């Protein structure tokens, strides 16, 4: 009996996707000498915002201060442009795959409201952790692993190890 129930969307074969991502990483390293990233743009956004609202406060804080260069917007960085590209690329792929839709995706067991709250909380933790570890899954783990960086492997193991460890407690949110 063939399974009648199927996932709504058909995505690339994961190995093909991984292969393309690997090629992109090689290309990125070949051209720019560094890897991919994503959380850097979030940091730039926060720095810009704080710098605009409270410039003196921003210049006193040791963390903001290192990203503020006089006469240059903190948004004017490589990663911000790359992130804009990610948005465009994601939109293109979603449009071609017929996946453009404004909705809240959640497991049947939880409400939309709860999903939004949990997502916000998750983002908060991830944003915090990504700053602490100097990069997220793409910047630290993936790009780090591509050049065999010890920090990259440690970060990757820590992320997945802790996610597996916590998975049991949050299973209701997903299945």
């Amino acid at each position, binding site marked *: 009996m063939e399974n009648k129930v199927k996932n709504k969307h058909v995505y690339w074969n994961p*190995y093909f996707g991984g292969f393309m991502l690997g090629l992109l990483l090689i290309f990125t390293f070949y051209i720019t000498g560094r890897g991919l*990233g994503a959380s850097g743009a979030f940091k730039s956004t926060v720095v810009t915002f704080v710098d605009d609202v409270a410039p003196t406060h921003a210049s006193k804080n040791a963390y903001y201060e290192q990203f503020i260069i006089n006469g240059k917007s903190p948004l004017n960085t490589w990663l911000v442009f790359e992130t804009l590209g990610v948005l465009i690329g994601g939109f293109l792929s979603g449009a071609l795959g017929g996946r453009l839709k404004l909705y809240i995706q959640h497991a049947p067991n939880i409400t939309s409201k709860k999903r939004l709250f949990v997502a916000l909380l998750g983002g908060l933790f991830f944003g915090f952790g990504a700053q602490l570890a100097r*990069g997220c899954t793409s910047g630290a783990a993936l790009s780090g692993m591509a050049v065999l960086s010890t920090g990259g492997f440690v970060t990757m193991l820590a992320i997945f190890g802790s996610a597996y460890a916590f998975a049991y407690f949050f299973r209701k949110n997903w299945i």
Partner: protein
Amino acid sequence: MSKTYKYKKIIIRRRYRILAAILIILSGGLVLLPKYQKNVGIKPETFLLNLMSPERYISTDFLANSLISKDPSILLIDVRSAKEYSDFSLPNATNIPLSTILKPDNETYLDQDGYKVIFYSNDNFFADQAWLIAKRFGYNNIFVLKGGLNAWFNTILNPEMPKTSDSELEFQKYNTRKAAAMFFGIGAVNTLNSNAATPNIAPKKIILTKTKKKTTGGGC
């Protein structure tokens, strides 16, 4: 399970096996490939090309001209010993004896973008050696004063009078050199010493900016 579904699955499984085999062969290839020593600095071929090219030489006339016009972009480096340096040196030259050129302190002088670094010694023999070492590390903007101080002495400070049969150009050159000698405070050869050579030129402030590290910062 329908027959076509089963058949498809077998094909996919076979494909995955082939892909896995390719992956193992590729990564195994890295292990098996013969290793060779990678050199730091520039490639031997580029090095040889640089070595054969006369572009590294700067003429005494050019140097005199730059010194007179106070060209801020040159950085003169005297590779002779400290004693020779204190006896006589070109205006605003910095002393880095050849034997100490590999000291880390001196790297800031050599590995930078701001200046044209010009080596000189009594002739161009030791300056060339310094140039070889610096070039080998891939430093840019490194030059050698052609003929060294001897040439400087013979052409700028004490130029030879052209013969009457020489062209107009030679005479022009002679006059310029004569004027340059005046500029460096020397009418006659016997006043040649470091004190006499400097008064016309204010000491230059050297601000060194190290060549930007080639690695880029910041991932995520």
